[in-house]
């Protein structure tokens, strides 16, 4: 068991790829926002890439390990310490019974991941241990970690001293600017040529009103083609209204003039258009960016987006570990 001494801002149990197969009932996949860092943490401790671990956001937790374990911390730098002594990220480390792991505010990036050899052993819910706390499902009692709760672990032996080659880790932006890949569509034909150019050449600021359900962006106006105006009344009267349709994960959903990137805990369908979609390979950048950061979007094809994802999957393997 792991005892939660300080819960952190919003720390939750997640597994990869999350809760899959229930999109038609409205369940989002949830899962780790930066699955690149998450999978590497699991590999370091000898777990399958999808084993359940912890996602820490903005301010990390303080945890006491009741039993000896091998753990790894990846992703954002929350200056982790074990009994007060700093421990390295991107490396598997031994923990003896009773030791306390303390993680503070993120100094770079936003989300850190803690993997334990054997994986977290909460009861799966609809096939996944991922937490969707807004609906109270999954994880530890359907919510983010609370003070004094206990996290069950199915401990196995792990090997300390393994580390991820530096070139195989995601490289966080140090300039507060990020280039985010997008695939045009499904509804890019609702945006006129000037609007498409404006979207792809402007700075978009990540708003503070952002969380795991959606990333709100501040930026210029959108302008539309006739599809947005010459439509039957049941589509709704605003240009970005459409008859309710399914939302791809990562869709940039245009609610009026407000673009909201639909992320891990977001809605599965609704009545606004999605002119662009962030592909799975770019999700880690969203997950590690902070309110106030600037996004510049780069259009890529479906094929290019799929190639990026395959490259990232290849990095989430034993080949990246020394």
């Amino acid at each position, binding site marked *: 068991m792991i005892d939660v001494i300080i819960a952190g*801002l*919003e720390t939750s149990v997640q597994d990869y790829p999350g809760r899959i197969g229930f999109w038609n009932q409205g369940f989002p996949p949830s899962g780790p926002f930066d699955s690149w860092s998450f999978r590497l943490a699991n590999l370091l401790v000898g777990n399958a890439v999808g084993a359940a671990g912890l996602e820490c*956001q*903005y*301010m990390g937790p303080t945890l006491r390990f009741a039993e000896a374990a091998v753990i790894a911390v990846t992703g954002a730098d929350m200056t982790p310490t074990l009994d007060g002594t700093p421990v390295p990220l991107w490396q598997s480390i031994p923990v003896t019974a009773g030791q306390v792991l303390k993680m*503070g*505010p*993120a*100094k770079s990036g936003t989300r850190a991941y803690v993997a334990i050899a054997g994986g977290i052993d909460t009861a799966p819910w609809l096939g996944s241990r991922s937490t969707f706390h807004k609906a109270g499902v999954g994880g530890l009692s359907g919510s983010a970690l609370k003070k004094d709760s206990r996290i069950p672990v199915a401990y196995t032996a792990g090997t300390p001293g393994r580390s991820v080659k530096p070139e195989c880790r995601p490289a966080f932006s140090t300039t507060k600017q990020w280039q985010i890949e997008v695939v045009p569509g499904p509804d890019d034909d609702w945006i006129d040529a000037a609007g498409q150019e404006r979207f792809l050449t402007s700075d978009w*600021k990540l708003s*503070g*009103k*952002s*969380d*795991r359900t959606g990333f709100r962006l501040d930026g210029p106006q959108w302008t539309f083609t006739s599809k947005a105006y010459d439509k039957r009344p049941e589509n709704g009267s605003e240009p970005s209204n459409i008859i309710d349709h399914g939302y791809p994960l990562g869709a940039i959903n245009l609610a009026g003039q407000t673009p909201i990137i639909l992320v891990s805990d977001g809605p599965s369908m609704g009545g606004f258009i999605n002119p662009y979609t962030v592909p799975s390979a770019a999700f880690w950048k969203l997950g590690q960016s*902070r*309110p*106030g950061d600037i996004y510049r979007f780069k259009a890529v094809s479906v094929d290019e987006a799929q190639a990026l994802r395959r490259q990232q999957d290849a990095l989430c393997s034993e080949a990246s570990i020394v």
Partner: protein
Amino acid sequence: MSERVETQVPGNMWKVLVKAGDIVKAGDTLFIMEVMKTEVPHVAGIDGTVTDVRITEGEEGLEAGIVAVVIA
């Protein structure tokens, strides 16, 4: 002894509870930030007098790691 209390998270300044000249004790909440719709209270680490308040209630888009309140 003095303390420079920094913002722990990037986000909005939801409430500022002190002004220059206020006497505070260790543990008193100085200001509350908001990120991901969660309140993040920031407390004084020492007893003392607030000498400087560099943030304003309602400010949005603050960075983490900036000096918000100084106690002497």
